[in-house]
């Protein structure tokens, strides 16, 4: 049986949706188990592309194409390349982790809770799989609703403010995106005869220079909010603080990745001249974010706010790296998306575990946990070191490539970006000291134990992945290198775009989506 017979990618999206329907049909007691089984099955399914992916081959694989609204050029069009390949298992795993960490902490409206998570998972996977702009937009927005509910219903005290702030920020951004999509469809009509929302056709279009800058801006604002790029970040700390643990895990681990993913998928290939034009400004914002996020994180008392601002710093570095538009920077950016998902997701899991035990996230009221909960402390330290970018762990691989890319772009950019090496240690070690070391400052000194088996099961694979990526990154970077090369090739501004596109950018026949030209082996 070839992979073509099984619409693998559609199955990926359908699995969590089917599970959510099943959860609705169950009683509360069985709902958890069904949600867990669904998340596990989906995670295993997201692993399949890792093994079936043909390394070194440019373009999309596992492509599915069914016309949807033919007259408008909208299609059910899915595909995977090196850029999305590793984001799928990340999403699958963190969703599974989200179900597991919610096992005991969620007491009310259990069914609605797990339904929300499974719908969210379907939406997230859809965003990474969609090759049709409208499809992308549907998933993009569909994902917001469950996240809005998760924060707004199962969040803490100030959850309404945070939920509304989250959704307004994101919706405001995505409206610009929709405007951009519609304009692009008309452009496709003007140049190809029929309107099209097909992303693979859009990359072959020549967007007139007069339109590039404002179109780029429309797309970029939507994605920059998600990254979040300084100064569009203030929704993030509020959302994290109010969201339940599982919500924070997926927000930091997966949703933030969609910003950079969108930039790489849309902004770079569609608007190369505008990308080149805006690069200095975006890099400046990225560098400011690196330093600013780190310093603000250093000044926080709430553990979740601290981790939230650390994301602003880390994601700023990723943005700087990918805008260097060289191989090292792009590979580093993609790798670091995965790494940040692992380390920050893990940090939020740990913060949640701490909160369940101490009922506080205040750095002035924690402390001394290394003695009481050595296993939790060990996981905490390893995760912290992954975030610090200690060589041998995953964070260093991404950081090294990002800094190499920045350095190749300009030595002073590399030097500015490398300040994150010191700044990251500043707040992460401070956090560790206040949580694990010194003496216990909390009122709640007893009645809690070390990691349970369930918590160990959640954290162990993450830590193993951190070591594995840190020690053997070539397996990862080799697989995503063709995607990075393709991004560079199609994003080269200037005359290169005027002539025939670069070798691995295929000129598409009328109505034929990209990717189907590769016969399956």
């Amino acid at each position, binding site marked *: 049986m070839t992979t073509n017979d099984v619409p693998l990618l559609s199955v990926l999206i359908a699995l969590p949706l089917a599970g959510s329907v099943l959860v609705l049909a169950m009683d509360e007691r069985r709902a958890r188990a069904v949600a867990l089984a669904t998340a596990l099955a989906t995670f295993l399914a997201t692993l399949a592309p890792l093994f079936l992916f043909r390394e070194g081959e440019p373009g999309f694989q596992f492509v599915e194409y069914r016309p949807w609204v033919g007259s408008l050029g909208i299609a059910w069009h899915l595909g995977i390349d090196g850029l999305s390949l590793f984001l799928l298992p990340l999403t699958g795993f963190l969703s599974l982790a989200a179900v597991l960490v919610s096992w005991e902490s969620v007491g009310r409206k259990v069914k609605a809770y797990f339904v929300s998570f499974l719908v969210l998972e379907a939406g997230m996977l859809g965003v990474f799989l969609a090759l049709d702009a409208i499809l992308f937009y549907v998933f993009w927005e569909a994902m917001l609703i469950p996240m809005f509910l998760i924060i707004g219903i199962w969040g803490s005290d100030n959850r309404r403010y945070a939920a509304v702030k989250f959704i*307004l920020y994101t919706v405001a951004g995505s409206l610009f995106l929709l405007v951009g999509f*519609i304009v692009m469809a*008309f452009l496709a009509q003007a140049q190809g005869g029929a309107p099209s929302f097909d992303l693979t056709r859009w990359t072959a279009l020549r967007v007139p220079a007069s339109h590039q800058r404002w179109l780029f801006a429309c797309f970029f604002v939507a994605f920059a909010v998600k990254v979040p790029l300084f100064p569009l970040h203030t929704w993030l700390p509020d959302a994290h603080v109010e969201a339940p643990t599982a919500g924070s895990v997926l927000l930091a681990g997966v949703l933030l990745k969609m910003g950079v993913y969108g930039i790489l998928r849309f902004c770079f290939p569609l608007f190369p001249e505008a990308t080149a034009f805006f690069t200095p400004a975006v890099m400046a914002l990225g560098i400011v974010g690196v330093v600013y996020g780190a310093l*603000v994180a250093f000044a926080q008392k709430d553990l979740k706010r601290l981790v939230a601002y650390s994301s602003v710093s880390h994601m700023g570095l990723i943005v700087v790296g990918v805008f260097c538009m060289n191989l090292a920077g792009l590979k580093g950016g993609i790798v670091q998306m995965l790494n940040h998902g692992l380390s920050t997701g893990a940090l939020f899991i740990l913060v949640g575990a701490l909160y369940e035990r101490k009922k506080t996230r205040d750095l002035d009221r924690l402390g001394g946990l*290394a003695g009481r909960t050595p296993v939790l402390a060990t996981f905490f330290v390893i995760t912290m070191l992954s975030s610090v970018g*200690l060589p*041998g762990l995953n964070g260093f691989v991404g950081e090294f490539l990002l800094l190499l890319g920045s350095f190749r772009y300009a030595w002073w950019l590399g030097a500015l970006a490398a300040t994150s090496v*010191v700044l990251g240690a*500043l707040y992460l070690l401070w956090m560790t000291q206040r949580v694990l070391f*010194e003496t216990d400052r909390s009122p709640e000194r007893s009645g809690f134990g070390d990691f349970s088996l369930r918590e160990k099961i959640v954290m162990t694979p993450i830590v193993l992945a951190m070591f594995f990526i840190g020690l053997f990154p070539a397996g990862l970077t080799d697989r995503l290198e063709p995607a990075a090369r393709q991004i560079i090739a199609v994003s080269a501004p200037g005359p290169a775009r005027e002539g025939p596109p670069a070798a691995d950018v295929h000129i598409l026949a009328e109505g034929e989506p990209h990717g189907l030209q590769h016969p399956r082996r």
Partner: protein
Amino acid sequence: MPPESIWILPALPALGALANGLLGAAWRDRTVAAVAVGAVGLALAAALALMAEMLTGADDRIFSVTLWRWLTDGTLRIEAGLVLDRLAMVMVMVVLFVGFLIHLYSVDYMRGDAGYRRFFVCLNLFVFFMLVLVLGDNLVVTFVGWEGVGLCSYLLIGFWYEKTPASDAGRKAFIVNRIGDFGFLLGILLAAVTFGTVHYGELARLLAAGPTVPGDVVAAVALLLFMGAMGKSAQFPLHVWLPDAMEGPMPVSALIHAATMVNAGVYLMCRMAPLLERAPAVLPVIAAVGLLTALYAALSALGQRDIKRVLAYSTVSQIGYMFVALGCGLWAAGMFHLLTHGIFKGLLFLAAGAVIHALDGEQDLSRMGGLVKDLPAVSVTFIAGLLALAGIFPLSGFVSKDAILWGGFEHYGVFFWLAAFGGALATALYSAKLLSAFLGPRRADGRPHRPGPVIVAPLTVLAVFALLAGIPGLPLFTRDTFFARFLGMPAAAPATAASHSLEVALTVLQSMAVLAVLAGAIRIFARARRPADPAVLASGFGIDRLNDWLFVRPLKAVARFFAAVVDARVIDGAVNGLGGLSMALGRLTAGLQTGQLRHYAVSLIAGAFALIALTVFFAGGL
């Protein structure tokens, strides 16, 4: 033993750490200790076997192995590879020999501590990372070990984490090291971008091939790597973490903060010798930083009351001398001082640990005296180490330091020599201060308890080596010592060769002066009333307070300002203000307090539809 099997050296301590870390919770302390000590002991045995093979083989016998490809970027290829040449062999011997003795010592020294297993896991892990650092065949692998030993240092300084000063000290060590590593990492990147490789062998080949890279770029790489070395090896002004690092248990101070890790900067510079030789402008910088550190730290040591802090500043000072040697291009002399210092300073820390244990945790020198009567075995070994440190003829410290002072004279003239010599005299002064703990009257009540054989045995072995380790540095008054020949790193001749008789005369003068100062100072310090410690020396010339005012406080103030004002008021204020504005425009101001966000939403959605309608209208004309 097949030469490719050098990976076994780091693998053994790693296995020890893993076994104790994952399974050790169920084991008795005795088993935990046996695993940890056994792992390092086996690694030492393997290293000795390799050493024998190296000595019997050809002169340029090098063991190397490439384990796997770590990362590629275009033509840049970074591999996980190890190499054991003679330079690395010296470090491996120091790390495993001193490391083994200190592991052994810790079995007894740490007994009864609640974190017994954690201690040995970290100590094994440290040896693993140190061997990775030493054996790495390229800058990135070395950097992995480099940061790894930094991590272990952080964990072990803060070993007694309930104490806030210990936690603070660990954090300070990590962050100050990271400032150095900022330079190291940029150096790696610059090397990777300019040479297209980070492999030591490739770099040496490229550099030997001729001036393909502009000299100032080579100098920049050298300076950046030196910045990393300054952090790890505690050179002024990045030395501030080492005195505080004494919060850690004594074996940690001996192993990490005296004998091995802090010397990694010296080792790195020797590794990069082909590069430094192509950057002649950098050598005086290294020599100057080394000399300044040597002097500064020797004087600061003089002002300390805490026996561990005296030794810590002394370490900073002695490493300064190693950098002086490197700044003169005397690679072998620098490495030789590293070797002898590793032995006698490791000994001094361990013996001081035995003293502190015997006195129930007393670290104040002013409360120690006449210990030679109570603790004869420990005292004899301590004094042996101390005389070696002071550079008394013919002990190991004399041989290694003499070569450095003479190198300074030859390369940088008489004033440089005078300053370096002044540092040597200050060394004699604080050595006398330390000696006074063993001589003179008793200064504390109670009878000290004598340590057991597991503590005394390592001390004795180290003391014997402290006396004899000068032998490889013979013959005196030549660059062509046994040690230099073993290393195969000949020193370049200085521009103006001074006369041989002058060298002999200076050595005699130095030895006499050091002896005189030592003897005189002992009389002063052994008196019942000792001279008070000058405050300026005690605080290390106030560098910590200066850093606090210059960097720490402004940084914290800026962070608080960003968090409380910029983020909360300016940026978020603008966001909320935008919401308020759209609300006002929509004239939906019915319920200011309650409906704010809902109204904002309504106006936003209305605006969105208007926007989309406009877009479709205009875009239709494309």
